[in-house]
């Protein structure tokens, strides 16, 4: 007899056969009339400009990450809303604590300026060297003390 996982395996195999079967069948049955537009990214007529592999501004990542974090955290509100009536005040307080922590994170992001799109003054980090890194370039800084 098949185990539970065996069933999954059978399911996977059948799924693969279905997909492959469909593609193979269409490849055999369909007419072959290739022309250049068929290879375009957007067949609706939009002409792509340049390469898709370009550098995105790092700010997109920051915003995306922040969005992702808060988005996922807010998902917790849904199950909470479902059981809110059964738990009452306790649930309210618990969620309040949760939201406060979330808000602190939000405040941090805000104050640190990660929500500002246009940074008025780009900050160029000063190079502050650590001991192990300054071996080569900087003379050892020895605090001499009078005896």
């Amino acid at each position, binding site marked *: 007899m098949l185990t539970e996982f065996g069933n999954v395996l059978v399911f996977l195999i059948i799924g693969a056969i279905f997909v492959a079967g469909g593609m193979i069948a269409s490849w055999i049955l369909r007419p072959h009339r290739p022309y250049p537009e068929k290879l375009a990214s957007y067949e609706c007529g939009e002409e792509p400009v340049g390469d898709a592999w370009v550098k995105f501004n790092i700010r997109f990542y920051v915003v995306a990450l922040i969005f992702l974090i808060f988005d996922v955290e807010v998902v917790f509100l849904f199950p909470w809303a479902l059981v809110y009536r059964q*738990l009452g005040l306790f649930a309210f307080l618990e969620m309040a604590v949760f939201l406060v*922590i979330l808000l602190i994170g939000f*405040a941090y992001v805000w*104050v640190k300026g990660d929500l500002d799109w246009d940074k008025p003054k780009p900050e160029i980090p000063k190079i*502050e*060297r650590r001991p192990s*890194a300054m071996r080569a370039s*900087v003379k050892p800084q*020895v605090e001499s*003390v009078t005896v």
Partner: protein
Amino acid sequence: MVEQTLHSLSQFLPETTLTITFCISILAGLILRNKPKVIPVISFAGILLATVFAVRQMGSSQAVFSGMIVVDPFAVFFKLLVGSTAVIIFLFSIYSQEVQSTLKRLVEYSSLLVAMTLGMFLMAGAVNLLMMVLAIELTSLSSYILAGYTKEAPDSSEASLKYIIYGALSTGLMLYGISILFGLTGATDVYAINRSLAATSVNSVALLIAVLLIIAGFGYKISAVPFHFWTPDVYEGAPITITAFLSVASKAAGFAMLIRFFKISFIDFNLLAAHAGGVWGLLQGFEWNKILAILSVLTMTLGNLVAVWQNNLKRLLAYSSIAHAGYMLMGVVVLNDKGLAAVLVYFMVYLFMNLGAFYVVMLVANKVGSEDIDSYKGLGYRSPFISVAMVVFFISLAGLPPTAGFIGKLFLFAALLDARWVWLAVVGALNSVVSLYYYVRVVRNMFLRDPEGSTEPIRFSFPQMAILLLLLVPTLLFGLFYSPIVELANASVLMFGVR
């Protein structure tokens, strides 16, 4: 439900304190933007308070939050260990040039240290595999950032990146192992896993694969060979305070989890009842300790042999800490409480001697500007006191009496010989001879070589010396009067639900 949660919360005081401290630290950092030096004081106080709360948990033994976390002597022991390490690290930070020269980021530094401590507290008590992964992640995420804290230095950024990549890989492997184990037993709770393994027999190959994958996760945390690749780079690149914290607390928390997982998951409770305190019976005849024995031999041998060739002291200490993980694994291999007690004794001793060594490295790096072994030449004549302290820490790390390191080794070897793991004890003993060689290389540079360049004495302030004494005195004292640490270790091997 509510009552249960409230009760759990009352047993969760240290962790709650840390969470609140974390939030307050960040908020205070946002409000008091012009006084960044206040924040570490807040964080320090919070960790101190959490440690005090952890002390008050001593002796209790119960599961909280629907069996996700336990509060038992074993967990409390590791909480104390992690808490005291964090306290000492904060003291170090006062004199760390790396930290003090980046005051703008002091908020992140101290609050992330709190977060990391919180993660380790959770690691110490987690009994559910998912909780374990979450705790590991909390610790790891904080430590990734802290490892790259001095982001202006290229090696620090490199350290952080390497740490993330290796960390992600090993967590992935571990999760995969956990899912296989879940498939086999239908549980993520270690007690439930134990019950399931006791009730039905499982495919031994699948079990082996699952355990190997989980070991990858633990092995990464304790930097056991072959999961150690990140260690030297991270230890070298991270600020010394963070390196010291990782080398003691992170390792301790990893060990706490490893020991708990293996002991509870695979122990045969029926056999245990028959002879309490004796050798643990193993479910399914699965001898995981043999895997750990091989790992232990690899870890200490490779750690020691590679350390011999290092010229950067932080890197040398990184490899030495790998070797020490190997020694401590020996204590887990013997499958009895004596071995566990030996590991706990070793950790207490290791805390003082390893932190002490890193502290001296930090003080010297502040003045001399380098962590190279060559820059220690003639240090014994320029700064006798801290050089002598360094010698004490090093001979303690090498395991020579009359230092505490000897007691640690003594109990490990005693546990091994008592369980008749003679070959492993011999390997460990030979390894400690090898380790002496590279420790003595530093001692040689300090005392047997003349200073190069400046020969002026290097002076340190009184508080700096006081912190050094705080680590030096126990290292010597516990070498001669070790009753307290052994008694504490004996009392702390008890885990919730075992006997």
